[in-house]
């Protein structure tokens, strides 16, 4: 067992976990933060996306011990106009992929703001990349939505990206 601490949604949490426990299971089963979802447990669906020091990762493939002393934000710690945009644009149906989509979108917007390119960026050396619908779709492709709310999700992100951010 390993005694670790991590900052989760702003508060320091003490955890006593085996090294094999994933960050996802630590959040869901140890801390009761069930907003972060498990869809595949192998990095293929994005439902478990959380932000670590502001960067999006798949928490199912992260061992909790590897993230000791880091700053984790889960959906429970997110309070962003993007969430209202998701509701208004109906970027959700069953709701199960939604927390992952929202955390991923927040991480993605930060990546874009930092000037990172994507697989559909025509010139990867460009400094400023317009966040078109095509760019959003590519950058969000790590988050599956089987209900097919993709249009609403993209619209919500566009609205959020277009506002004061």
């Amino acid at each position, binding site marked *: 067992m390993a005694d670790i601490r991590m900052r989760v949604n702003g508060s320091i949490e003490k955890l006593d976990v*085996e*090294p094999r426990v*994933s960050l996802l299971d630590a959040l869901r089963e140890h801390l009761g933060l069930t907003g972060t979802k498990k869809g595949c447990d192998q*990095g293929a669906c994005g439902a478990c996306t959380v932000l670590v020091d502001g960067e999006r990762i*798949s928490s199912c*493939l*992260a061992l909790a*011990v590897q993230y000791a002393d880091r700053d984790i934000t889960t959906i429970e710690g997110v309070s962003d106009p993007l969430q209202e945009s998701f509701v208004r644009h109906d970027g959700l149906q069953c709701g199960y992929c939604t927390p992952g989509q929202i955390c991923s979108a927040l991480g993605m917007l930060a990546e874009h703001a930092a000037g990172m390119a994507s697989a559909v960026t025509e010139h990867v050396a460009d400094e400023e990349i317009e966040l078109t619908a095509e760019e959003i779709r590519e950058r969000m492709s*790590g988050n599956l939505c089987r209900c097919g709310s993709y249009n609403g999700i993209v619209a919500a992100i566009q609205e959020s990206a277009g506002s004061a951010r």
Partner: protein
Amino acid sequence: MKDFAYLTAHDVPTAVRAITTPGAKFLGGGTNLVDLMRQNIERPDTVIDITQLPLDQIEELPDGGLRIGAMVRNSRLAAHRLIRTRYPVLAQAILAGASGQLRNMATVGGNVLQRTRCPYFADLAARCNKREQGSGCDAIGGFNRNAAIFGASEHCVATHPSDMCVALAALDAIIELESVRGTRRLPLVGFHMLPGDSPQHETAIAPDELITAIELPDLPAAARSRYRKVRDRSSYAFALVSVAAATEVRNGVITEARLALGGVAARPWRAHEAERVLLGAPATEDSFLRAAEAELTAAVPLSQNGFKIELAKRAITATLRQLHVEGSAA
């Protein structure tokens, strides 16, 4: 997942000493190893977290090349200014792989060592010589649509799934390895092994070695480069075939050509035959086609993956043409 001892290495000497413990494994970003551990394909007794090692820098070398620390995350590498301008094929290849989340986690060293996506390798109920030597290969007589067309053997037809490595192969990258025995430098081309009769041996790395860095040579032609990935859906899927290409053309004649293929072999496939045809040839559609044909003559199809031969030819031609017509991806 089997329970294991966990330790974090903060410096390279500690890491390479720790790995000499029997049953120990290095853990980078976890995007491949943790998945394999959960599926019981990897069952280490000791896991050494190496993400705290001071190997997270990208530095310019005196000779004009670049040294990339093995713990640099894939997304950081793709976002680096020098990569985007001098080696756009590498930025593109990385961005074509996995998802934003996984690229933020995965390390450069881990990407090189990631293991095949052959579905029979992933299912413990199936026979797989790579997982269990001598057990047989269920892919050869089964679903092999995404299996290798180059360098496969009667024991294994798996492919290497990395996009990044395809670009690194085209760029003649060097892998730096460190162990208690010292430092070794190996070309990435040839680092991954063809299966032969021991498909369990996947790379030239020794069990006690750590990848510490990847070095890119100074290569002016790399500034004019592109990566093209063909897959079963628009994103977040492994390649059926991918092409990394860099060329230099002077007065209509190809003076430098670097070409590598992904999704076709147990290693990122450096297309030497195609390069030979291209070098000195006019930069025309005909040359591109001849180059593609020349490379694919050695391809051997299985029951379901024959289409990759034609697909690879077309992807090579299309990529070279795009590079010629539209220029660099930078």
